[in-house]
């Protein structure tokens, strides 16, 4: 192997030595672009052995040398930065090596007439043979004239993949509205940094609709993006990201797409199996997860459901707070914090933003859980779900629950009209469902006097109603 008489090798050696001893890393910024040694060698030495200039070969000759440097010479110093840069440079070089560069060149010798005749052949123009033949494009278009256009197609322009010179953001998106087995892994979505949250949602839905084929998806306004844990658990303590805000405003990379209305329970197993067949080639990683056989998947889904029920029952008495709106009789709303635990229910007002006067002045109150008699969803609207918590106002006054029972026996009719009061709350659908479920689980566990009494009075009312109607 010729070394010291090889200009290319020497130049390459100087370059590499310079890079490897430069701690600032600046040298790479300067040298990263072109293969300077080769260019210089080309300029300096016209009579160089043509073998040396052979692109592929000299790359192979020089590269092992660069790598040996670390081991043979035992350069013991902190050079992680440089190492990283070297690696990047290496990747860039490899990528560049894949691109073949062809320089404009006109041959010095004139082409022979034979060559000219071969290259530039005058063609007799016959009647166009394709005239009258149907184009494949036309056929495909005719086949799908009634093809419903993907409703999210307008969001395609927010695609951040393969963009150059534009800031993009990459997200792991958990699609909570999909069947259980598709919910557990995130979809990687890259969008441009100037997109708004609602535009990101639209783009996610576009991507989702192309991957998950026929899964019914609703308009963009039906969905919200929530901060989500790496394992896909949506954090409902925080509100969804403001759809009108720019994605760049939020620093979270892991988000959950949640449908504001409940439809997930309607998804049957048949449809999920179709989805499995529809898997597209680009989701190779994802498909690994899906390779569970149909039955197994069903079993897992069922188990997961059981686990979920169990977990919510276990967690019900644990303290949790929610942000909801309290609705008074005048239908005015105020945001409050609702704290629920196995002992009590607390209502704490929140500082009202941008309001000089409030219609609802909510004082902080606390009710013992045994005074709470009933909890139910009263109304479901697109804007949110309202739910009602009924409590016994006489519970605290009388001091003990035994007294409540005594009251019942004295004058039950009076009792029902005076001692039960209620609060109306409004929250988004998921939160409302969760709260109602939580309270009801606690109430079932404790089955307090207030609850029994309330149920009894409701039964009486109902009986009376039926009596009236029967008359």
């Amino acid at each position, binding site marked *: 192997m010729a070394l010291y008489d090889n200009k290319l090798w020497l130049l390459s050696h100087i370059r590499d030595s310079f890079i490897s001893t430069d701690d600032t890393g600046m040298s790479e910024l300067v040298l990263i672009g072109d293969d300077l040694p080769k260019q210089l060698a080309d300029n300096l030495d016209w009579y160089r052995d043509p073998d040396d200039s052979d692109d592929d070969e000299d790359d192979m000759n020089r590269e092992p040398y660069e790598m040996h440097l670390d081991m043979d010479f035992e350069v013991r110093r902190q050079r992680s930065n440089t190492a990283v840069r070297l690696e990047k440079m290496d990747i860039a070089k490899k990528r560049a090596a894949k*691109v073949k560069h062809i320089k404009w060149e006109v*041959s010095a010798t004139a082409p022979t007439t034979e060559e000219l005749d071969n290259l530039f052949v005058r063609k007799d123009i016959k009647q*166009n043979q394709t005239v009258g033949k149907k184009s494949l494009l036309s056929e495909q*278009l005719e086949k799908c004239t009634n093809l419903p256009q993907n409703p999210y197609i307008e969001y395609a322009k927010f695609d951040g993949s393969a963009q150059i010179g534009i800031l993009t953001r990459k997200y792991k998106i958990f699609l909570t509205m999909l069947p259980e087995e598709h919910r557990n892994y995130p979809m990687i979505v890259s969008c441009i940094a100037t997109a708004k949250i609602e535009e990101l949602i639209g783009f996610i839905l576009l991507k989702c609709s192309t991957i998950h084929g026929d899964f019914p998806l609703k308009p963009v306004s039906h969905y919200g993006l929530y901060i989500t844990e790496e394992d896909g658990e949506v954090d409902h303590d925080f509100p969804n990201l403001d759809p009108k805000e720019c994605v760049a405003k939020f620093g979270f990379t892991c988000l959950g797409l949640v449908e504001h209305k409940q439809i997930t329970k309607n998804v049957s197993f048949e449809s999920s199996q179709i989805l499995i067949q529809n898997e597209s080639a680009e989701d190779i990683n994802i498909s690994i997860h899906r390779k569970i056989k149909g039955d197994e998947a069903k079993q897992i889904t069922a188990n997961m459901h059981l686990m979920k029920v169990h977990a919510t029952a276990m967690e019900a008495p644990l303290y949790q707070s929610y942000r909801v709106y309290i609705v008074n009789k005048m239908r005015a709303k105020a945001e409050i914090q609702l704290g629920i635990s196995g002992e009590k229910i607390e209502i704490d007002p929140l500082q009202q933003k941008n309001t000089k006067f409030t219609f609802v002045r909510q004082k902080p109150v606390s009710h013992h859980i045994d005074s709470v008699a009933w909890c139910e969803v009263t109304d479901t609207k697109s804007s949110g779900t309202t739910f009602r918590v009924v409590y016994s106002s006489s519970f605290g006054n009388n001091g003990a629950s035994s007294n409540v029972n005594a009251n019942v026996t004295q004058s039950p009719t009076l009792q029902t009209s005076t001692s039960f009061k209620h609060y109306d709350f409004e929250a988004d659908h998921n939160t409302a469902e969760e709260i109602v479920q939580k309270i009801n689980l606690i109430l079932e566990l404790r089955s307090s006097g207030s609850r029994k009494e309330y149920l009894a009075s409701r039964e009486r009312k109902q009986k009376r109603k039926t009596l009236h109607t029967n008359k």
Partner: protein
Amino acid sequence: MVVDGTSENDQIILATGGYDHTIKIWQTHTGICQRTMQHAESQVNALEITPDKLSLAATGYQHIRMYDLASNNPNPTVNYEGITKNVTGVGFQEDGKWMYTGSEDCSARIWDYRLKSAHAAKIFQTSAPVTCVCLHPNQVELLVGDQSGVIHLWDLKTDHNEQFIPEGDTMILDIDVDSEGTLMAAVNSKGRCYIWSLTFGRDGEPTKMYPKHKFEAHKRQALKCKFSPDSTLLVTTSADQTARIWKTCDFSLLQELKQENQRWVWDAVFSSDSQYIFTASSDGYAKLWNVKTGNMEREYAGHQKAIIALAFRDATV
């Protein structure tokens, strides 16, 4: 997506590119973007698909880059360099023997693009930056339009050339010859369209051009002109935010393709049966129009900035 190798030639390919430094490949009937490729260093000026449908050529500032259509590589595989300015046009000899380009460094070139025949390379110098190049269907004459308003007819075999000046000092922006080689159209920066009738040159003789017609195609500069494959129609695109389809029998207007806020219409191409037309515009959308009805049938969304160039290869059933 893996392209099925066996059905390669039955495939429809639509590629678009422009100012956002990306090239997109579309599924034409659904409007879904199949692939995005990076054109890092400059905007895309022109696109062309090789006759074997295996590669896509994209021209930009100082370079022509070749992308592999059969693989999923987002980066170019070949880079042609040596031009000092913008490359404005690119095309291929119908059997893929050589590639031709036009560039703002006042030249049109023939490239031995597959490095097979060293003597193919040729250069033709003009006095003004070249705006467009068009290969006559006889495969031996290249029409070169430049910024000073001259159309050069360059015979590749003999290097003989002729000049035509339809309108002095008015930039020629595009030239096209119909598939039968009987009509030639050129559009200029004043929105005018010139038509010549061509006669077949007998062996070795250059094609003769006879001015036939001249009409105001657009109020503002015209950007592209293309004959339909069946030679019955001519489409012109313009900065006046329209594309117009003209009948070649009398050059009367057949359709005006217009959409609110679509801005400059840069490029257009017909389907092989002349029933549909694709356009590319500054609003970042490529659009598919029905020639008969003038209705827009599909929209291809995904580009961040203006689309300048289209490349399309149809197939027949």
